[in-house]
């Protein structure tokens, strides 16, 4: 019964003003994190020698030979 009551009350009525401030700060921090991760680019290096290249690169050379 208590649970039913809680979900029927609008969210802004459930929190005190200090709780709202904390939630707002959390929301801002979540948004900031999301923005930086969507713009965050991941880079990798190739191995040190051609012979150490992955099978995909070796297949690339083989397949270009068929073109």
């Amino acid at each position, binding site marked *: 019964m208590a649970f039913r009551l809680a979900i029927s009350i609008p969210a802004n009525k459930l929190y005190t003003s200090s709780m709202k401030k904390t939630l707002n700060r959390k929301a801002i921090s979540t948004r900031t994190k999301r923005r930086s991760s969507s713009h965050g680019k991941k880079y990798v290096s190739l191995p040190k020698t051609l012979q150490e290249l992955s099978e995909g690169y070796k297949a690339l*050379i083989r397949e270009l030979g068929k073109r």
Partner: protein
Amino acid sequence: MQYVTLGHCRTTVFPFIYAELSRTEPSAQYEQENNGLAELDKALHLVENDSFYPTFADKAAYLLCSIAGSQYFSNGNKRLGVTVLIQFHILNNAKQLVLTAKKYQKLLAKFFPKHSWESNPTIIEADPLFLYNLAIVIGDRTKWGDGVDFTALKQKVSEMFSELYHLPKS
């Protein structure tokens, strides 16, 4: 900046290509084609000129376009162009952007809308599949786009490379 030399080609690049080809596939014997070697040597020297090719992306684009799009050798020019490009990246410890195949496809379509992306079940990873498609584009002038000459081709490839590759800060 470190550059690929004809010496690197003889000791590393050509043997790598030979090792990856099956006995039945046609393969240029690069060392036996003197005219091709002379043209390749010219391209490998020209790329060192910073006034022609000021950035890493410009240099990488020139290497790939000039070799893969040329007829320096009777066969195997695309393979050679891609392998020299990779060797250039290795020598300079270049970093490459991690993208999905879909994003590579989108990037290539932005610059070369006339090309239809080709999937290849034996090339599983996204980055070599991108290079495979790019080499096909470079080798087929009809896919460059209307009014795109060799200079414009190099520019397009350089713009793509500047999004994909960068040198580590020294």
